Structure formats: structure tokens, C-alpha cells
């Protein structure tokens, strides 16, 4: 039973909360993929998307998810809004909140912006990612994909390669997978995989082959081009040579291992182009599951709000 106004991170959720959301997500997916649109659980209310950072799949996924469950969805186009005139986050939030929206789905470049929004809005805040803190629906859709393919989380070895330091996806995945009993190994350049993250319950290994060895799940993370300017590694060519995943690397994983990526992929950087059609790649399913997970989260939040009215 969901009992929070907002959905802004995995960190404070219980194992039961996560199970509850995943169960609902599978139910939503069944209705979605079996083309039984008329049978999809419906709710009433409205949601506004507030994306201060660019996004294709997360934003559209939330948009579709909202509409699938019957929400009236609007978007504040940040690029043409008063944010460009220097309006503060607080002002923007209060404006949208005062218009009486039930749900604000927000993405923002600053860590803690979701907590800040949740504290200052009557609307329910749903995180679509904040800074380098968390991206909770991504972790849920990844979990859903893993569960779908593996049946259970217990004892799974999940290897995540890339810019861990700046990755909200890696953090949310770590929180979730730890709670569910899987074991996470992070790999990547020493400048982007801080040793201190072991204190959060991850294993750190700087050798890609060693990291991928016997993994059940191998996940590449997007190397953000803007990070290159921070001088964390010499160039993309060297990154690809040292930490790029190709078929030969993937062979170190278990026979039935799956390949994941939160996308968009820089093909030829973190993943070799040959993997685009690899049978073990579940990247497209991640996208589908993303809609289901977001339907579940939105539905759950609306139920919470409606029950409290």
C-alpha cells in the first residue's frame, strides 16, 4: 500500500514498496501489450510535466503513461517559459502548483530539487531525475526488465559500466538492487568511479573484463559528452578502447546474461555498434517497460490523492 504524497527516490523505499510498484507495473504492461486499451485501469486528475533538462524517452514515456491511465496531461515548455527570464525554481513551482495540478513530473539538473519541490508544493512531485542524485523510474523499469528476464533478483550479479560519479541512474539502481538482494559492481575510469561508493554497498572494479565476468546483467551508461570537458578521461577513443562493451567483452558474462542501457546510447563509445541487434540486448524492452512503470507510479500516486480527499 502506497502511503507517500510524492515519488522522488528509491533510497527511502522499502522492499515491499518496490514489490508493490513492480506488481502493478506488470499488470499495466499486460493490459498495454495485449492491446486491451479499454481495460487499462483508469483514474482522474491532471499532471504537468516540467522538464528543465532535455529528454526524449523519459518525458514522452511519462506523457504516454499519464494519458494511458486517463490523466489530463500538459507540459510547461521550459524553453519558452519565464524560466528564460530568470524566474526561480520556487516561482515556477508555485505558479504551476497554484493552477491546481495533481501531479508535477519534474526533471531538473540540481540534486535535491525534487525534495525541494516536494516540500514546497501541494501537488505530488514525481521525479524524472534530479542532478546526480536519483532517477527512480529508470531504476524501476530496469528492475522490471531484470525481473522479467531473470525471475528473481536474489544473488544476481549486475555490472554497471561508465560515468558512475555523475549518474543518477547508477545510484537509483544501486539502491533498488541492494534492497532486492542483487549485487552491483561498478566499473569505469578511476576519475568517474569513486572508491567511496563502496560505502553505499557497491563493489568497485576498474578492470572491465573482471567486472563483466559471470555477470547476469551488464549495463552500459551513457558517456555524457559534456563530461569530457571536465577532463575525466583523455578522449572518447580511449574510453571506448578501455571501457567500451563489445561482443568479446560480453562473452565474459554468463551465457544467459542480458545487455541493458538507459539510452540514448552513444554507439561506438560505451557500446559497440555491432550490439545494436544483439539477441541479448533488452534495450527496447526497457523503453516499453518504462511506460508501464510510469503508469503504475502515476496511478498509485493518484489513488493516494483520491483516497485522502
Amino acid at each position, binding site marked *: 500500500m502506497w502511503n507517500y504524497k510524492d515519488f522522488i527516490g528509491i533510497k527511502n523505499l522499502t522492499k515491499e514498496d518496490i514489490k508493490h510498484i513492480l506488481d502493478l507495473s506488470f499488470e499495466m504492461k499486460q493490459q498495454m501489450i495485449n492491446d486491451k486499451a479499454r481495460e487499462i485501469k483508469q483514474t482522474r486528475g491532471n499532471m504537468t510535466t516540467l522538464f528543465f533538462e532535455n529528454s526524449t524517452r523519459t518525458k514522452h514515456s511519462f506523457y504516454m503513461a499519464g494519458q494511458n491511465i486517463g490523466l489530463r496531461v500538459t507540459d510547461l515548455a521550459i524553453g519558452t517559459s519565464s524560466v528564460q527570464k530568470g524566474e526561480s525554481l520556487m516561482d515556477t513551482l508555485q505558479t504551476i502548483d497554484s493552477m491546481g495540478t495533481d501531479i508535477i513530473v519534474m526533471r531538473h539538473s540540481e540534486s535535491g530539487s525534487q525534495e525541494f519541490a516536494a516540500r514546497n508544493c501541494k501537488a505530488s512531485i514525481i521525479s524524472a531525475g534530479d*542532478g546526480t542524485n536519483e532517477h527512480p523510474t529508470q531504476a524501476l523499469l530496469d528492475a522490471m526488465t531484470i525481473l522479467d528476464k531473470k525471475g528473481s533478483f536474489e544473488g544476481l550479479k549486475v555490472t554497471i559500466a561508465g560515468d558512475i560519479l555523475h549518474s543518477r541512474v547508477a545510484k537509483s539502481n544501486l539502491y533498488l538492487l541492494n534492497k532486492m538482494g542483487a549485487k552491483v559492481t561498478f566499473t569505469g575510469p578511476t576519475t568517474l568511479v569513486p572508491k567511496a561508493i563502496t560505502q553505499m554497498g557497491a563493489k568497485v572494479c576498474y578492470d572491465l573484463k573482471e567486472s563483466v565476468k559471470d555477470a547476469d546483467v551488464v549495463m552500459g551508461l551513457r558517456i555524457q559528452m559534456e563530461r569530457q570537458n571536465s577532463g575525466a578521461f583523455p578522449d572518447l577513443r580511449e574510453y571506448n578502447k578501455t571501457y567500451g562493451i563489445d561482443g568479446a567483452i560480453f562473452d565474459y558474462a554468463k551465457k544467459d546474461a542480458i545487455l541493458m542501457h538507459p539510452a540514448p546510447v552513444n554507439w561506438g563509445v560505451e557500446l559497440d555498434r555491432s550490439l545494436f541487434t544483439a539477441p541479448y540486448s533488452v534495450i527496447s524492452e526497457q523503453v516499453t517497460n518504462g511506460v508501464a512503470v510510469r503508469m503504475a507510479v502515476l496511478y498509485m500516486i493518484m489513488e493516494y490523492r483520491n483516497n485522502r480527499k
Partner: protein
Amino acid sequence: MRILIRNGRVIDPATNRDGKYDLLIEDNKIIEVSEKIDTDADKIINADNLWVMPGLIDMHVHLREPGFEHKETIETGSKSAARGGFTSICPMPNTNPPIDNEFMVEYIKVKAEREAIVNILPVGAITKGQLGEEMSNIGNMAAAGIVALSEDGKSVMNANLYKKAMIYSKNYNLPILAHCEEKSLAGKGVINAGSKALELGLSGISNDVEDIITIRDIILAESTGARLHLCHLSTEGAVRFLKEAKQRGVLVTAEVCPHHFALTVDDITGYDTNYKMNPPLRNRNDVDAILEALKSDIIDVIATDHAPHHEYEKNTTMDEAPFGIVGLETAVALTITELVDKGIITPMQMATKMSFNPAKILGINKGTLSEGSIADVVIIDPNFVGTVEPEKFASKSKNTPFKGRSIKGRVNYTFVSGIVVYDVANE
């Protein structure tokens, strides 16, 4: 006007008095300190079980005027100081416009004369506009009455310019109050680098940010012979460099702020911007090194870095919120609670670090209860038990991470030049 303070524990580093004495103020001067004074007075204060110290001196405050009067003014900052037991405070030059020429110094002095209830001793910027490009009017500002130089809020990153300013300042015998921060390393950091920053997804400020400039400044102090005072020291490394420099006879002193001995990075709760200050809250080993250095007098001064910010400025994300917390009205209680009560320093060391040493470093004739000196006096109740109540602050701003914290000790009276500027009975 005669004020007799009876039976208090007089703690005065200048005369090395620590015991029960009566103290008599006539007009603006202390005229007698002795075991028993039998005389008439206009006001008699019974200071049984209370401490009588020379008025506290805060070498490091931000009064925000001119330019940021919504945060604090010279008037409200001085009231905050009086309530905290401080009789003299040194406003840093990072105002708008900055204090970088004699006209600005005059402005501060005129405003202070008119509106302040404690002594305002301005600090001048080292470079024009605090831009780190050209030396400011150091000589003219010295003539106008600054007591020190500082680029506070940042370091002068150009070592050549900084070294010249250090040499130039020697002619005016002004100490350099150094904010040690290597800009490129600090980046966009907001809290201490480490697992907490990683967990919250915040950019970190590592110890080496401070350590590198600390050692650079010590090297330059040694090569130039300038007087260096390290501001708000926060790292174990800085303590080690300071100690080693002092042993070699370099003219270096240092201050620490109460939040850097009372809190660690682990005390940060969520994204509470009242925990955002620069330097940031550090690790346990850093705090332990600071406590040891306070005890052994390697650290000379306790200063507040009083940094008021308006609620609307702090009510935002960690990245957006400005650095700093208010400190004038919590310094005495935190020092008693965290240092004196725990036996880390004695009350005499407290008076030394909060009054006598600051006066000595600034080269001002204050920080003493000796007969004939100006009557800047504070009376402290070391046994008072309570909590930090920001709503009672005289400061315009309430940005403190100590809200609700249990504390021991408070200020009962503050006198500036023999005039009562704070009396706890009027709360």
C-alpha cells in the same frame, strides 16, 4: 555614571586574573578591579556565579552593508553582536560595492558611528573590486582606519599580485586575513567531498582545496615576512601546516568557527541549505585535529564568519543557495558547550581566543579588563541551559543549522565603552 559589577569571576588574559573580583566602571573606563570595592554606584550588578570577560572581538563577520541590506545592516549586525557578547566586530569587504578604497571605509565608519551599538572595525579588500587583478588602495584605507586586509570569500589566485600586496601591507602593519581556497579544485562544490556528497549527488569540496592555498600562503608569509592570519580553518592538513609553520617562527595565526568544531559532514540532514557553508563541514578526523589545536593553542582565535542570508535565498536547492550561516548569537554558547564544558579549553583560553588574541592580531588596544582601559565588558552565565532559538536573534537573518540544539551558556550583559548595549533582562 558608575557601574559596579560585584562578585563575578573575572577572567582577564591581559592581567592574568582569574578569580572573584569586583569591577568598577566609571563613564567609559574600567577604573578599578579588586577583591572588594566598597563604593556607591548608579548601577550595581550582582555577578555571582557569572563570568566577567573583556568584551568579545569577532575578527570575521559579514554585515552586508552596503548592497545586501535585506540580509543584514551595520545596525542589525551590531545588535546581533551585542546580543552575542561581542563589543567589536570586523566586517569583511565583500559588500557591493566592496570595501576597496578609503571612501568606502569612511562610509562604513560614518554609518557605524550613527547606527552601530558596538565597535565596527572594517577590513579592506586586497584587490580592487575583489577581482584579483590590481592591488586596492591599501595605504589610503590604512589611513582611513582599516584593521586588516582580506579578499574574503576567495583567495587572490595570482600569487605574484598577492605577494606584492603582502610586502606592501607590511608598511602599514596590517595582518592579511586569508580565505584559503584553490578555485579550480573547489569547482562547483557545495559540501565536503566524500561519501555524503556522493550519496546526495552534490559536488564536493575536498580538503586539498584549502590545504594547497594554506601552504602557499604560509610559504609567502615566510618569504615576505607579512603577518598572515588563516580564516575559518577547517582541515586536519591546515592544522598540521599551521603548527609546523609556527614551530619555525613564521608570523602566522589562525581562527576557527564554532560550526567547524561543533559539527561534521555527517550532521548534514538531507538538502538543508543551512548546512551549506564555505569551507564546508568536514570529517571527524578534521574536527578532532581542530579540537586538539584549540586545546594546545595552535589555533589562536574563535571567530564566527557570521554570514546572514535571507530566508528566500536559503529556501532553494543546495546548488543555488548561498554559502554561510549566522554565528554571532550562538558563538558563546557553542564554545562553552562544545569546548569549555567538555574540558577542551579553559574559560581563560576562551577569553584569550575570543578577545585577547583578536585584539593582539589586529593591533588594537582592546581585549583587556585592566584598570584604565575602555570598558568593553561581557558578563556570561556559563550555567544557563537552553536551546538555540533563531526567532529571538537580533540579526535580520535566521540561517543557522543549530536551531533547537541544546546548549549551555548565554550572555547576560554586554557593555561597550561603559554603556549597556545588551541586557538579558530585556529579552
